[in-house]
């Protein structure tokens, strides 16, 4: 068991708490940097997908896990970013500029969508974002002069300063830079006053307001940052897939995004990454497991849905803190080895708390 002896106030907000964390994160960073030389191309491509989804998940985590504003239309922000990037890239804009524009446009859309969030809460907000998601999907399908409609749009590969990033390894490097950058932005935001304000709003709006936090400002900020990250993820997704169509950014994608952060563990950045790994890794596991199932079940189109649903139900019922919560328990067990008690993380049974009045 490690005891941290705090001698400076800076230690409270340091990104890495102690030397062990520094070591492991440095090792992880080294492995990720060396991955193009170590891993076969297929795994590298999968890892790029994990990074892309992790960017979106970090954004959604800021909004849902830290600010408490659930969005069931987040794929729409991805779509806005993806189509903006596709449009700009086709016109030969340099990559940094077009990525920045996609993020800015997504953020602007996010602020507009966030406006109802100032008046409605909880489920109403979820349904408002759901409606917004449908509207964006329909706009993408109908605005054929820009988006190519339902036929879809092919996207040129990314190119940075004239160097095309068309190999798997170079695109992986781009994704790595983006994911590290956006994670650092999110972590920094969370240890700054804005991030503390987000958490205060999540825990109680009334108390936050009476502490002098401007709800409208911080909710809009949360929506803007979250949408910007989703837009960045969408832009990279467009380059990765090289073909986008409106149905990639529909309700199913939105629910996948929410599923990702819930399974990863709400309220932790680690959870966003674990969720992204889950979302990308699960189809592979399912296809591996298909060999052990009877043919009628294995060939059914709904197998993946059933597995996702069962996993989701199991997580909500048995492990509400998600994969990261499970890791926390494991770590505590290891740290305390003979002294871990079963009830340590037990939820307190509480009466149903009404969220109607808040």
């Amino acid at each position, binding site marked *: 068991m490690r005891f941290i002896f705090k001698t400076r106030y800076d230690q409270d907000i340091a990104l890495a708490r102690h030397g062990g964390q520094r070591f492991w994160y440095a090792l992880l960073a080294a492995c990720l940097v060396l991955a193009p030389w170590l891993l076969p191309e297929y795994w590298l491509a999968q890892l790029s997908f994990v990074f892309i989804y992790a960017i979106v998940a970090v954004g959604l985590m800021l909004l849902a896990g830290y600010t408490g504003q659930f969005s069931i239309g987040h794929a729409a922000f991805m779509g806005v970013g993806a189509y903006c990037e596709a449009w700009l890239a086709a016109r030969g804009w340099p990559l940094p500029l077009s990525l920045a524009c996609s993020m800015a446009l997504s953020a602007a859309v996010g602020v507009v969508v966030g406006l109802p969030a100032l*008046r409605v809460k909880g489920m109403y907000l979820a349904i408002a974002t759901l409606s*917004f998601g*449908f*509207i964006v999907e329909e706009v993408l399908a109908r605005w054929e002069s820009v988006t190519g409609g339902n036929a879809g749009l092919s996207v040129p590969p990314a190119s940075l300063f004239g160097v095309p990033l068309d190999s798997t390894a170079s695109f992986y490097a781009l994704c790595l830079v983006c994911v590290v950058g956006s994670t650092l932005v999110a972590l920094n935001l969370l240890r700054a006053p804005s991030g503390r304000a987000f958490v205060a709003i999540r825990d109680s709006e009334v108390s936050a307001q009476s502490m002098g936090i401007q709800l409208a400002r911080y909710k809009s900020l949360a929506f803007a940052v979250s949408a910007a990250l989703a837009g960045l993820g969408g832009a990279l997704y467009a380059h990765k897939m090289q073909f986008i169509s409106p149905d990639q950014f529909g309700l199913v994608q939105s629910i996948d995004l929410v599923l990702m952060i819930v399974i990863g563990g709400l309220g932790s950045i680690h959870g966003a990454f674990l969720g992204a790994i889950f979302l990308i890794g699960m189809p592979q596991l399912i296809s591996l497991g298909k060999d052990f199932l009877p043919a009628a079940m294995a060939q059914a189109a*709904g197998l993946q849905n059933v597995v996702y649903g069962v996993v989701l139900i199991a997580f*909500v*019922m048995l492990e509400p803190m998600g994969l990261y919560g499970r890791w926390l328990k494991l770590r505590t067990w290891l740290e305390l080895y003979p002294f871990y008690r079963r009830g340590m993380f037990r939820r307190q049974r509480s009466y149903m708390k009404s*969220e109607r*009045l808040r």
Partner: protein
Amino acid sequence: MLVLQIIVAGIAQGCVYGLIALGFVLIYKATETVNFAQGDLMMLGAFAGLAGMGLFGWPFWLAALAAIGAMALLGLLLERAIVRPVLGQPQFSIVMLTFGLGYVMRGAITMVPGIGTDTHALAVPYKGATFNTGVVTLGMEQLVVIAATAMLCAALWLLFRFTRVGIAMQASSQNQLAAYYMGIPVQRLNGLVWALAAAVAAAAGLLLAPVTFVHANMGFIGLKAFPAAIVGGFGSLPGAIVGGLIIGVVESLSGFYLPEGFKDVVPYIVVLLVLAIRPTGLFGDRGRKKV
């Protein structure tokens, strides 16, 4: 008289939305969760009716009653096995749970060999019949939908107004803790509410089946019932039906008058407008926290 015909079609469609929205509202009032699997319960109900008629060769009315009963039982089971253990957790985790339920139901249906992946027509006795008043010609399916919805609403009104169970349900939805102290078995009532919601969903599915078709993704129509529930005010039973009618009529009118593509989006535009102007809906009451 085309307009009248469109309006009647809209009302029929709106009745189905209203019935699904009624399920949302019932469950929301009882357990404060939004059941995203409501549309999939409706789909299961339609498939149950199909199974009753196809496998057992029952007549339509018997199959329909059996389907509704079976779905009520399923609702009761779902509440007991899955929803009750997680009550007390944050609202959104329970919503995610219902997402999961929806996924499982949709996936499980497509796994049934030979049935799940196809679209089926439910052979109802009134299929294709029309009703001619001299001025307009109305499809019998639509009239049946409207009549059945009206009857269901009346039955629900009687239930909530005059029976002990109904009044207890009202009490527990107003203040759960107080109702519990008064000796009302709140948990058992929650189970009954889920059963009721599932039964209403099954009825909606059976009514919708002749108008569209029965297939695994028909539950997505439930997503259009959210606007209905919000427009009516999420806590109000009559509001759900009125909201459904409004959404149905607006949708079918916009399909006729507005350019293509608007029909699918108009319900969501309406709901965003309602949320911006009057977030509590038409019939909802505004709760405030007193500190």
